[in-house]
């Protein structure tokens, strides 16, 4: 490829960074709180809730994200065509415009959020369970309510403890966004693959690789900084 071609290509590929970042950002925005909720549900003393949450985590971690994306994305068109679909559901689903960009984004996002929440749930559960019992006892003896104990005493300490594992997960997510191309979501990998065929060149993939690498490097720096910031206590 000529250097002009590479420039045009790079410019084109830059336009696909925002949708990639959008998927990345919204996945984090929803999957982290959902993961926290799932972690608490899994620790719930009412066993059926704990088991159901466990089953959800098992499925999400036990099957490929790629499969989940495809299942979620095609669930609407396939369900509404199937004869076994109840009337009320098919009438709801018929109203969905599966051609729209927003449908595409929402379905892909849903798959990512469900998947990542399961991983975050396990990270957070580990973090919460690693806090010594004495912290709860001290808080209880001082008259803190259960809510106050959780939000003021436990959670800040959990936050510090889950940073390393979470940063791992978040860096994997940057690269996992590329899986969305399987259903045609226009992210970096989608355009790289297209341009590869167009130019019969590996340069588009190389550029995509640079993007992922740079994003992961920036995240590594950010998490390193956060860890250092939180180093004031043990």
């Amino acid at each position, binding site marked *: 490829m000529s250097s002009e071609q590479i420039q045009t290509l790079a410019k084109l590929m830059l336009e696909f960074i925002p949708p990639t970042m959008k998927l990345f950002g919204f996945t984090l925005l929803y999957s982290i709180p959902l993961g926290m909720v799932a972690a608490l549900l899994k620790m719930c003393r009412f066993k059926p809730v704990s088991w159901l949450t466990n089953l959800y985590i098992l499925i999400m971690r036990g099957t490929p994200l790629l499969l989940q994306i495809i299942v979620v994305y095609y669930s609407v068109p396939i369900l509404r065509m199937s004869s076994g679909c109840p009337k009320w559901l098919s009438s709801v689903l018929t109203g969905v415009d599966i051609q729209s960009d927003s449908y595409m984004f929402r379905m892909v996002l849903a798959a990512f959020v469900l998947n990542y929440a399961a991983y975050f749930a396990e990270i957070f559960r580990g973090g919460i369970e690693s806090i*010594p019992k*004495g*912290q709860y*006892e*001290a*808080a*209880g*003896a*001082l*008259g*803190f309510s259960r809510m*106050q104990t959780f939000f*003021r*005493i436990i959670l*800040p*300490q959990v936050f*510090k403890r889950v940073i390393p594992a979470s940063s791992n997960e978040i860096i994997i997510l940057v690269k996992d966004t590329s899986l969305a191309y399987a259903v045609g979501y226009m992210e970096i990998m989608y355009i790289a693959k297209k341009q590869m065929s167009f130019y019969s060149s590996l340069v588009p993939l190389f550029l995509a690789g640079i993007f992922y690498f740079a994003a992961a490097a920036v995240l590594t720096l950010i998490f390193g900084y956060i860890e250092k910031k939180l180093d*004031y*206590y*043990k």
Partner: protein
Amino acid sequence: MAMLEVKGLSKSFGELKVLNDISFSVEKGEVVAVIGPSGSGKSTLLRCINQLERAGGGEIDVCGVNMVKSGEKGRAVYADSRTLREIRLKTGLVFQNFNLFPHMTVLRNVTEAPVCVLKKSKADAQARAMELLKKMGLEAKAKSYPCELSGGQQQRVSIARALALDPDILFFDEPTSALDPELTGEILKVIRELAAEGMTMVIVTHEMAFARDVADKVVFMEGGYIVEMGTPQQLFGDSASERVRQFLARFSDQ
């Protein structure tokens, strides 16, 4: 009025009975030392009184407020949650391993409960906290984090933290067991000072000399029972119980 009244308290962990028919009382300004071999139920007793364990049966009253009483079939019946909370604020507990909040400064460790639980203003809580830290000789450490302090300093912070809620009665669960002899002296000195000020205290301890010198009343426990209870002179002088004499003999040899 007794600050603490325990009657017929019992507690089991599964099959294992760890507390049997424990009865004793603590008057205002009294210092009670609970001694005895490891595994005798001393800590469990303290934990039951401080609501960290549920009593199996019997009765506990704190400052005249009933916390738990025996219901049908001798089962423990607890007061409603509001009363239990009220009682919690009357009692303070100092742990063997301090249990300070590691993510908060020393000052914040002391002010957090007064601000969040008692709804004191931040300024008031800080003024009181600095007063307490000064008393503990730690005013210079107010901005430090617990991990930067020695064990003795950490324990003094945890005493200040408990005192910040102005408890009517303060409990110590082996406050010096995690400390070396030098730091132990530091903590015992603080407790002595509190005793001199008339603080009502119950102290589970293995420091026999301390128990003898500071306590008004000594409770000797073994196997979940109170074997003997009396003044230090009675127990350390010439105990009626063979077992108490035997236990304390090792100490007097030193």
